[in-house]
Each structure stands twice: as structure tokens, then as C-alpha cells.
């Protein structure tokens, strides 16, 4: 199964960088296609079209304990009654759109892994401690996920 792991975030906005850090760490010891993105708009489709499976790692903020790891489906994060966002497309909207426009090329399976964040408002390259601790755990989860193929 052709798989890609995509990390999304901002590398200098503290915990928002967690998706990127996971992918960087993963690609150091696993031979898998990876991509890093800083937006959730059409560029996500540029990266995942043509793959059988996509694992997307992003930060999430729900108010739970920082460092909590969630495995989600597209519908879990598809929460809005209106898609329109004034500046950016949401990840869920982009993925849903992908299935409408490129049904044959979209991955049959998309897994979203989200890490609860604490600080995404201050600039800095380091994650907060609890979020940092979650990184190796997420990397292990993805390794298991990949080995299923």
C-alpha cells in the first residue's frame, strides 16, 4: 500500500509545530514518503493525490489535557455548518473537496492524528513539555500504522 505521512503546522509557533516535528522524527528512522505543509488548503491535495493511504498529523485545540493524542476521521473534525473561512480552507473541507473533485485519485484511507496543544500564540521553535512528550508516542503509533500495510 502506497502511504504518505503529512505533517501540518507552523515551525515557529511553539506547539503548532508538533505535526512537523513528528514527521521529521519519523522520517529519520522509517523509509516512508513524507511531506510538510504550512497550510490546510489545496496544497494538501497536491501531496496526497495518488496515494492509497494518507496519515495527516496536526495540532488540535479542544481544551483537553495538552499532549493528548487523538485518532480522528475527517467527519470528526468537520464541524462547521458553513465551510467558508475568511482566510484559509479547513483541513476537513479540503479533504472533502478532494473526494468530490478527484474521487479516483484520493487515498482510500485517510487517518488524522491530532495532538492537543497548549501554546499556539507565542513564537518559539520549542513545543511545551507535555506536547513534546507526545511526539515519540505519535511516531510509534504511525510506525505501527505503516507496518499494517
Amino acid at each position, binding site marked *: 500500500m502506497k502511504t504518505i505521512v503529512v505533517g501540518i503546522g507552523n515551525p515557529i509557533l511553539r506547539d503548532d509545530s508538533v505535526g512537523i516535528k513528528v514527521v521529521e522524527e519519523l522520517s529519520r528512522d522509517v523509509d516512508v514518503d513524507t511531506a510538510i505543509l*504550512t497550510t490546510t488548503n489545496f496544497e494538501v491535495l497536491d501531496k496526497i493525490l495518488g496515494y492509497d493511504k494518507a496519515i495527516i498529523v496536526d495540532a488540535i485545540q479542544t481544551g483537553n489535557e495538552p499532549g493528548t493524542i487523538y485518532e480522528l476521521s475527517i467527519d470528526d473534525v468537520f464541524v462547521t455548518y*458553513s465551510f*467558508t473561512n475568511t482566510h484559509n480552507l479547513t483541513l476537513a473541507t479540503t479533504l472533502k473537496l478532494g473526494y468530490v473533485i478527484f474521487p479516483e485519485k484520493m487515498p482510500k484511507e485517510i487517518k488524522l492524528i491530532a495532538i492537543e496543544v497548549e501554546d499556539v500564540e*507565542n513564537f518559539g521553535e520549542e513545543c511545551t513539555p507535555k506536547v513534546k512528550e507526545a511526539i515519540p508516542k505519535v511516531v510509534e503509533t504511525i510506525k505501527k500504522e505503516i507496518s499494517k500495510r
Partner: protein
Amino acid sequence: MKKIEINPITRLEGHGKIAIFLDESGNVAEAFFQVVELRGYEKFLVGMPIEEVPRTVSTICGVCRAIHHTAATKASDQIYGVEPTETAKKIRELFVNAHYVEDHAVILYALGLPDFVVGPEADPAERNIVGLVKKVGVDVAKEVLRKRSYAVKILEMLGGKPIHPVAGLPGGWSKRITEDERQEIEKLAKELVELGKLTIQIFEDVILKNEKYMELITSDAYRSVLNYMGTIDEKGRVNYYDGVQKIIDTKGNEIGRFTGKEYLNYIAERVLPWSYLKMPYLKTIGWKGIVDGDGTSLYSVGPLARLNVADGMNTPLAQEAYEKMFDVLKERPIHYVMAYHWARAIELLNAAERVLELAQDPEITSPDVRAELGEVTGEGVGIIEAPRGTLIHHYKTDEKGIVTEANLIVATTHNKGPITLAIRKAAKHFIKNGQVDEKILNYVEMAFRPYDLCLACATHVLPGRLPIEINIYDCDGNLYKTLRNF
């Protein structure tokens, strides 16, 4: 691991908040727009060597990375007292124009056009890009998405790193374009021009030919009489990478022109009591309040502002489209806020044509991409037109080129006055006698969507929406109703 239900209420603080105040008869007395910006970015840059700054600022905003990178690179030229080589300037311009094609395509197709094509009063579940795809057809959408990905490919080819561009250096660009790459860019650019033509076509077919939408564009609810600012080249035409900033008044008369540090002579910022954000205005006119009309000191930036200040476009097809817009809307400058979307379509075509022209320029493959650095001057101002409007990066450094002060003015900051005004006007138009329903949320959102706000664009944490809350207060200041898009 656990499975959760996402509660979409995220961080309202840090995002958009609109307060609307009603008078005794339930009509709108005042409306304010508040944003809380991300903290500490400028401080983060202090202590960094200036040549590191372009690579770092490309991460401020995932959407506008190419633009922040280029603006900081231009500032670093000045700090090192160096004029980039002609080829380096052309590569940078190519890079910026490729970014325009990508960014304008996303804004138009995902955020702007759905309001028109699907209709402003359509169910929100339909009034979105998926609804748009249903209307224009999957094949057209496929074409649009495929072609815009070519612009991303060009950006990646030139930027030096797939996501965050790193190629801009003081005095030039770190890598030359090989003949093979040039040919590839030329091939992709031809497709981008087709995307530009298609976009103008869609705009004309679905909007210009529809009387109802034209009424909406020219409605008083979405008309703000303002001053405008944008970059022009030596022939007075729109330019995104470099030139002179020109400011015109509400009637189109020139107020002034500036480059570099002279921005301080023209732009001042007003601290407002209801917001701890500052609102820029034209210093030469003096603060007149958040009002439009002749004599106002508010100015707007972005696609429509650029077309308003310029005498034309620097490519043939865009020039035709430019003339048509002014002919159809029958005013100059154009004050219809919804025309921002039209101007954006014209600029998309213009940027695509410019990418092609530059790809065909014999000088573009020259190895002469970097000039010798001069003495550290200690100060540099990089001004560039971001897709959303004028972007200013101003740095001061010590004698070794280490940043001691940074000041960034982004497009959304320039547009703060016009955005507040647009919201106020839409609210006044659509809220009458205390009657407030959910539809007004979209009509109000429509008023600021043309400006394509970039509030907290550095972050896009899931669920990824920009929450907007509208609080409506009665004449005694009591909360009367709250509307939310989350």
C-alpha cells in the same frame, strides 16, 4: 488514544469579534471589529542576523510565505547596501507572481466566488466551495485545481526548499535557473495563463451576466469611498515586486508617492479606545475618524486599491480585463468593495502572463544572480505588494547586521479602517428595527471577505476555522443577541 467529539468552540480571543450597537429604534448605531494579533513576532526576530530573517519570516504565515520571504530579502539588500543583479530581480519577480496565481486562485475559488455563484442567501451547507464545484462542474474544478498546482511547483522550484522558501539572499538569489528549469517553468506558465483566462471567463459568465449579482456588487451596502495605496512601476502600471507606493484620494487625485522609510511620512497609527490595536490613517490628511467619503484619512490596500492607483496593467490580456472593469462599473476610482474580487481575477491573469514573460526572458537563466555585499548600513525597508495589499518589513541592525528592531505592517493592518467601515455599513443596511437573523452573519462576512483578512494566519490548529462572533447590544448597552459562525 481516545475517540472524541470535537467541540468547535476554540479560541475566540485572538480571532475576530464584532460588536454591533443598536439605537432606540433597533437600528445600527455603531459597529466595531476587533482582532487580537499574535504576540511577539517582531521580538522573536530581534537578535537574529539579518540574512537569517528572510528564511525565518517565511514561516510567519503558511499562506503568504513567499511574500514575507521576499519583503525581508528586499530589506536585507538595503542593510547590506547592495543592489541585486538584474537577473536576481527578475527571479524574485517571477517568484512573487507565481505566488499570486496560487493565492488569488485559492481566495477566489474557495472564499470569494461561492458567495456569488451559489448565492449569498443559500444554505451555508451549500454556500461554499463544494457548492461552487457543483455549479461550475467537477471538470472545471479539476482543471482549476490542477493548473494552480503548477504555480506551487514553480514556487518550489525557485524557493530552494519545498515549503519554506530559503533562496532569497541580500543582493540576490541563492540559485540560478537552469535552461531545463526555464523550459519547465515556461510550459507551466502557459497553463497558468489559461487558468487566468478561465477565471475571467467564469467571473464574466456567472457574475457579470447576472443582474442580481451585479446589483449586489454595486449596492450601497458594499460601497466605501476611501483613499487607496499600491505599488506602481515607472510607467504607472501595477507591480507586485517593486516600484513606488502611490496614494490617491477618493476622487483619484494623487496624494503622494514614497519609497522605503518615507512610509513614516505618510502613514500614522491611531490608538482606539475600544481596541488595543492601532488603526493606520494618512498622516498628511490627519485622523478624521472611521468615516468614508471625501476628506477621509482612511486608505485601503489590496487588489482593487492597486488597480485604482495604477494607470494600467503590464500585460496585454490583463490590460483588456482592467479596461472592461472600469467601463462596466463606470467610476474611477472604483469604491465598490465587492469589486475586490473582480480585481483579484484580473490580477491572477496578470500574474500568470508575467510569469510567462519572465520565463521567456533571455536574462532569466544568467548565472549572475548575486551582487557583492557592501557595508552594513544598519537599516532597511522592504516594501512589496502581498496579494492582500502592501506589506512593509522595516529592520534596524547593529554594525554586524544583527537585528535590533523590527517593524512589520501587514495588509490587514492597513485595511483595519476599511474593514471596520465595511462591517458597519453592511450591518446598518441589513439590520433594521431590531430584526436580526442568521443571514446577516453572512452578509456581514461578505463585507470583509473581499479584504481576505489575515488575522492569525500563522496558526491553523484544528478544527481550523476562524471563529467570528457578532454581539449585538441594545441602546442601553445590554447584550441583545449573539451570532456565531462556530
